């Protein structure tokens, strides 16, 4: 993590940011949670500057409208979920290392069989309308999200069999099967909602800002929402962890990144709640009063192919493609060095679950040899190999609204040309691309593409078990296996990873699965882009960088001693 302008303070850790480029980089989906990352070597996790007196007001720029920001109306995983969680709390809260820590829950115990979580709640917490918070609210939250589908939270809680209230400050949550990811995926992700408000809400998806549904226990209260324009939050001065460090938070909506950059330059806003593109970083860092914080993110840029289709069903072809791709060149050329080279085992090197034994190599000669051995030769001398008598020429999709992905596609084309594979780059509208690669968001419906640049948002790496979703052949487990990959060993490992409660054994299984991915190449992991966050340090410098979630989180606005 580097800082582009040296103001003292604020050492950012090498934490991944959970951000934008979500599913297919389409700005949806979002950080479900953060990874328990021990990553960044000598970097301090806690900002060294202490915001002493509270800052009166801070204005930040964001992209897009997030509607009325209650658990059923917020729109995107980033920044929608992050802004939602300024108003609400979950039972656990990620610290800057991305480890879940006690929050509304003062602690929890897991039974030996991994099925029962006994959660003790903090005493004396009140909803921001003054009503006391109790165990009834926790039970109600689980029941309500299970009864009223909200894709993220309903999915988080889908493995819960029952919740019982043992005491006003104690609940027992029973799962249908052991799930070691439960604390990360559910306890630290689901906002607890007040029973006394929501029990009378029958159509949650239509709850508007006028109705009192935005009552939470969180550090901020949303007091004004102007569609397509702004949000105004005021601090909850009686927040149970202590009064926030910024009294008023105004979020100004811009149509795109360029809007935020211009507003930072004019001083209309003092922070950008969105990562800026690599080519903007130097220019912005040079602007007076503006700092740019850079850090690695868990978002991914990948090269996908339909492995159910010939010739991608041939291992030699997939391995040759992986060997032909020079990932470092991509990081340098497209991201101007602001990114991490992709590991062929998919997992980010700064993840605590990274298998360091998995190497990533570029070797064009070996790639060519592999294809020759497989009998895929260029018999007519046009520079393109043939397969079954047809030239190995394939359509490579890239989203038209994403210049970085387009550039990655162009570079891939050049690199694949060196091994006699002709990739024809086709730029198509984003939603159209998603629908071809991932029809109806349902992998069991097949796919309609040959090759595509694609990628996933940070949360997919944040919960280490999510790698199973990319490679398992059962759609219920491999829900984002858009390559159509099917491998008995991968399925076996996935099954074990999902229920293994022993951390050491689990890490070992995850490492094995990464090695398998590197060898079998269900997709080519290209790179992990850095997050680049611009802000005016004179206006506010108390940012907390949560591994996997970046700076847009409630910790950024709490006094240091209020943070976990």
């Amino acid at each position: 993590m580097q800082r582009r302008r040296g103001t003292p303070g604020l050492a950012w850790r090498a934490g991944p940011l959970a951000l934008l480029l979500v599913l297919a980089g389409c700005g949806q989906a979002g950080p479900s949670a953060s990874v328990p990352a021990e990553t960044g070597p000598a970097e301090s996790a806690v900002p060294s500057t202490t915001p002493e007196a509270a800052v009166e007001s801070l204005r930040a720029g964001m992209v897009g409208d997030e509607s009325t920001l209650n658990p059923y109306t917020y729109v995107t995983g980033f920044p929608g979920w992050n802004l939602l969680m300024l108003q609400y709390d979950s039972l656990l809260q990620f610290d800057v290392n991305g480890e879940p820590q006690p929050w509304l829950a003062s602690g929890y115990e897991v039974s030996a069989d991994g099925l029962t979580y006994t959660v003790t709640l903090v005493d004396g917490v009140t909803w921001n309308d003054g009503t006391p918070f109790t165990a009834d609210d926790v039970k109600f939250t689980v029941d309500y999200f299970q009864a009223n589908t909200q894709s993220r939270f309903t999915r988080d809680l889908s493995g819960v069999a029952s919740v019982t209230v043992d005491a006003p400050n104690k609940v027992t949550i029973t799962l249908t099967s052991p799930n070691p990811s439960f604390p990360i995926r559910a306890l630290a992700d689901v906002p607890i909602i007040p029973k006394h408000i929501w029990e009378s809400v029958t159509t949650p998806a239509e709850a508007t800002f006028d109705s009192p549904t935005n009552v939470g226990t969180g550090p901020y209260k949303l007091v004004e929402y102007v569609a397509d324009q702004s949000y105004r939050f005021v601090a909850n001065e009686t927040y149970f962890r202590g009064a926030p460090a910024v009294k008023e938070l105004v979020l100004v909506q811009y149509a795109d990144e360029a809007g935020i950059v211009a507003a930072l330059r004019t001083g209309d806003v003092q922070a950008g709640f969105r990562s800026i593109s690599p080519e903007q970083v130097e220019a912005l860092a040079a602007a007076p009063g503006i700092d740019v914080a850079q850090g690695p993110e868990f978002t991914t840029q990948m090269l996908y192919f339909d492995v159910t289709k010939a010739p991608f069903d041939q291992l030699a072809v997939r391995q040759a493609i992986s060997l032909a791709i020079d990932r470092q060149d991509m990081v340098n050329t497209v991201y101007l060095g602001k990114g991490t080279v992709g590991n062929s085992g998919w997992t980010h090197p700064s993840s605590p679950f990274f298998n360091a034994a998995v190497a990533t190599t570029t070797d064009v000669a070996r790639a060519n040899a592999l294809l020759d051995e497989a009998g895929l030769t260029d018999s007519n001398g046009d520079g393109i190999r043939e397969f079954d008598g047809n030239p190995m020429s394939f359509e490579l999709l890239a989203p038209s609204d994403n210049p970085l992905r387009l550039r990655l596609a162009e570079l891939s084309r050049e690199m694949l040309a060196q091994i006699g594979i002709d990739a024809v780059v086709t730029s198509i509208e984003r939603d159209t691309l998603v629908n071809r690669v991932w029809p109806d968001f349902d992998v069991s419906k097949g796919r309609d593409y040959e090759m595509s640049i694609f990628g996933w948002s940070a949360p997919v790496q944040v919960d280490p078990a999510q790698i199973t979703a990319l490679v398992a052949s059962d759609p219920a487990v491999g829900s984002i296996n858009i390559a159509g990959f099917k491998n008995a060993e991968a399925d076996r490992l996935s099954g074990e990873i999902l229920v293994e409660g022993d951390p050491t054994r689990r890490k070992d299984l995850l490492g094995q699965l990464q090695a398998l991915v590197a060898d079998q190449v269900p997709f080519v992991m290209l790179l992990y882009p850095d997050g680049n966050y611009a802000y005016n340090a004179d206006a506010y410098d108390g940012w907390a960088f949560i591994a996997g979630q970046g700076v847009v989180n409630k910790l950024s606005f709490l006094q240091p001693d209020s943070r976990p």
Partner: protein
Amino acid sequence: MRTERRSSRVLQYVLVLLIAITLNFMLPRMMPGNPLALLAGADVGLLSPEQRAEVAARAGLDRSIVDQYTAYLGDLASGDLGFSYRQKRPIVDMILERLPWTFLLAGSALLFSAVVGVALGAFSAWRRGRPADLTLLGVMIALDSLPSFWLGMLFVSFFAVQLGFFPSGGAITAASSLEGVDLVLNIASHAVLPVLTLSLLSVPGVYLTMRYAMLSVLGEDFIRTARAKGVSERGVLFRHVARNALAPVATVLALRLGLAFGGTVVVETVFSYPGLGRLIFEAVSGRDYPVMQATFLVFTVAVLLSNLLADVLYPLIDPRARAT
């Protein structure tokens, strides 16, 4: 005779409106892409097939296209535009919030471009063939070929970022609690750059129409007659030429009134202006079917109304159109 013509004209409009409503309904559904991600939220891919089906059913997407269409027509007849998939809010509210801003931009720009375009067009025609006319003509043609996003971005970086004269985006300073004159000034300062961008891009159209109309009138016999009668050059220009040339210009302006709403999409995005244009842009990305239908409908109605306006205005300006 006349009432018959009028009623057939009304019938025509109703027919066009019905066809447009049908197209507005079909177009979003014919586009590849799926609104499920908006309906279910970002993590739609991680839902079970049953949960996905339930979400789709709640929005009525499991029903046959004919059912959906008749339901849409029924809602429309009762003035219900539906709920946004993305924002989960009534679309009527969303449109009403944004309409005034688009009115402000499109209206000011139309007014500005009408005045400037007509004046310059008349001047150019009067000076036809001379250096002033040729220079103006060249500038206008060049202006006409500029892409709006480019001009807008240029204005932002120069007038807002470099000089700091105007805000870089938005319609009003967020959470500012301004009142009275301050509020008006604040809104005005936000509107200057987008209005200027829109205006500069629509002046050439008006200018070219006016200039051409003037030139064709100048060649008419009655102008020669007027001159022969000894009417002053100024009198010829204003009383005879300009008056007659205004008819086609008025038609063009009336039609532009309808199109002005569509023309704001790009400019509203460049200036992060909270109008209808941005709403339509957001609706298309993500496939928010109900919002797409509703915004398309607003544009359709605007274009139809401006056509109607032109139909009504033309005979008033040009008596010859009344004869038949």
